[in-house]
C-alpha cells in the first residue's frame, strides 16, 4: 500500500515538521517503499497475542516525594534560545 502525497503532508503537519517540495516527493516514494516492506507483518497470526510495551516486568515504580536539590533557574534557562524574567520566551501563541 503506497502512501499518497496528501498523506505525507498531513503526517508532516501532525509532526510539526516543515518539509521542502523535494523532501515531500522523496518521502512519498521512500515511505511508500518502506511501508510496502512492512506489509510482511500481515502474514503473522497475532490473534490472542498481547502486545509487549516493556520487556521487564516492572510496575508502578514509586518513590517517596522528598525535597532535594535540583537545577537552578539560571542553569535550566542557560540553553534557552530566548529567555526573559526567568521564563522561556516564545512568539505569540494566540491570534488577535
Amino acid at each position, binding site marked *: 500500500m503506497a*502512501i499518497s502525497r496528501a*498523506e*505525507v503532508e498531513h*503526517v*508532516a503537519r*501532525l*509532526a*510539526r*515538521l*516543515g*518539509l*521542502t517540495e523535494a*523532501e515531500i516527493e*522523496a*518521502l512519498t516514494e*521512500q*515511505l511508500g*517503499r*518502506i*511501508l510496502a*516492506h*512492512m506489509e*510482511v*507483518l*500481515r*502474514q*503473522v497470526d*497475532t490473534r490472542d*497475542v*498481547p*502486545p*509487549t*510495551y*516493556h*520487556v*521487564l516486568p*516492572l510496575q508502578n*515504580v514509586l*518513590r517517596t516525594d522528598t525535597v532535594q536539590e535540583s*537545577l537552578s533557574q539560571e*542553569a*535550566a534557562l*542557560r*540553553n*534557552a*534560545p*530566548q529567555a526573559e524574567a526567568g521564563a*522561556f520566551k*516564545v*512568539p*505569540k*501563541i494566540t491570534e488577535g
Partner: protein
Amino acid sequence: MSATTKLTATRLNRLFLAGELSAEEIVEAYLERIQAVDGQVGAYLTVTAAEARERARKLDARRKAGDTALGPLAGVPVAIKDNICTQGIRTTCASRILENFVPPYDATVVSRLQAAGAIIIGKTNLDEFAMGSSTENSAFQVTRNPWDISRVPGGSSGGSAAAVAADLCAAALGSDTGGSIRQPAALCGVVGLKPTYGAVSRYGLVAFASSLDQIGPITKDVADAALLLSVIAGYDRRDSTSHPDADRLQRIQLPTDPNLSGIRVGVPREYFAQGVEPGVRQAVEQAIAKLAELGATVDEVSLPHTEYALDAYYIVATAEASSNLARYDGVRYGLRAEADSVTEMYLRTRQQGFGLEVKRRIMLGTYALSAGYYDAYYKKAQQVRTLVIRDFEAAFRRFDVLVAPTSPTVAWGLGERLDDPLAMYMADILTIPANLAGLPAISIPCGLSQGLPVGLQIIGRHFDEPTVLRVAYAYEKVTQHHQTRPALGQ
C-alpha cells in the same frame, strides 16, 4: 608513545596505580595520537583536551598523596558517544538542532565512570540521534573505518567504535537501540556489549526509542567490556526502567579457565539465511567450532519469527522516536528558527534542525501512531515483538547462549547505501531481535573476510551477562583476533 595507546583499559589502570605511567603521560599519548590520526578517521566531534589534562593532574596528585581508592578505571581515557550528556561539555547528538547544547548535568554513566577514576577524553560522532547504521547521517562529519578509510565504520556508535579500533581512546561508551554498539564494533574489529535492558541507567542518554535504548561499552577486549560494565551497571532511581537486579552486574568474575563444558550453545538457523556473506558465515562457523573444542555443546535452534523482527522494530523504534523528538521545538534548548507564530516556529525549527533520516523516521513513526493506522502498524508490531520474545524464551529453555554473526556483511563503502534506506536498515537485521527482547548481547572479533573484521554475536538471558562474557572471554583466550589491529598511522 604509540605503545601506550595500544594498551587495554585494564592494563592502563594497573600501570597507573603502580606508578609506572602517570595519568598525564597517558592523556598526552592519546592527545598526540588523536592529533596525528583523527584527521583521517573523524571519530571525535569534541576532544576535551583541557578537561582531560586537568583531571589527569588531579589523579596524579591523588596517587602521589597515597590515595588508595582511585578506582578501577583510574587513569583510563574513555570516549563518550555524543548522545550521552556531559555537564559543561557540548552534547550534539550529531544534529544541527543540538549543535550548541551544553548539558547542565552529567548522565549517570558519566558520573559512574568518573567516580571510578576514568578520564573523559572526548565526544564521538554518531548518526544523528543514533538513527543509522553507518554514522553517515551525522550533520557534522564523516567517520571512516580505521581498517579501510574508504569504508563506513558502521553505526550508529561509529565514532566510538572507530576511536577504540584506531587507539584514539582506551575504551568508549555507545548506545544500542537496534545494534548501534554491536554492529560498529563488528565492522571495526573491536568488542561491543549491549547490556540487558534496565541494567544500565539511561538517565542523561538522549532518548531515541525508550523501550529499546541501552548504553554499553566498546572496548579492545572482553575483560575491558566486563570491567566497564561493572562500573556503569546498577540501579538508578532517576531511570524508571532501571532494574533492581542491575546491581548484580557490578561484580562479574571472568573465569581464568577457558573450559566451556556444561555450556549449551544454540545456533539460530535463521541468522545464517540469505544476505549473510560467505566470508562472514565462514568466520562465524569457525568460531562456533572453536566453542565446541572448548567443551561447549553446540546445536541448531530455530527462532521462527526472526524474519519479522526488522519490520516490527522499524515501527516500534520510529513510533517511540516520533514521540521522543517532539521535545525539539525551539522553546527550551537547541536551535530556534525565528517566526511570527509559535506553530510556524515549530515547523521551521524542525525543518532546519533535523537531517533527512531523522525526518524520515519521525514521519514513519507519526504515521504508524496516527488515527486509523495504529492497530495495523504499531499494535501489530508490538504483538510481533511478543512472538520474537517467545522464540527466545523457548530457545533459552534449551540453551545458555545463542551465537550468530553480528552483521551480515563486513564494512561497506562510504555512500553505497545512502540513497537506499531499506538497504541501510538491513544492516541491523541480526542485532535487532535482542533489542526487541531486551536481552544482553556482545560482539567480539572472530576473524577477517576480505581483509575486514567479522563479529561473532553472543546473546544471553536477561541479566546473564556473566555467561555471555564467560563464553566471549574463553573464545578470546584461545584466539588472537582481538589483537589484530588496523595498520592506520602505525
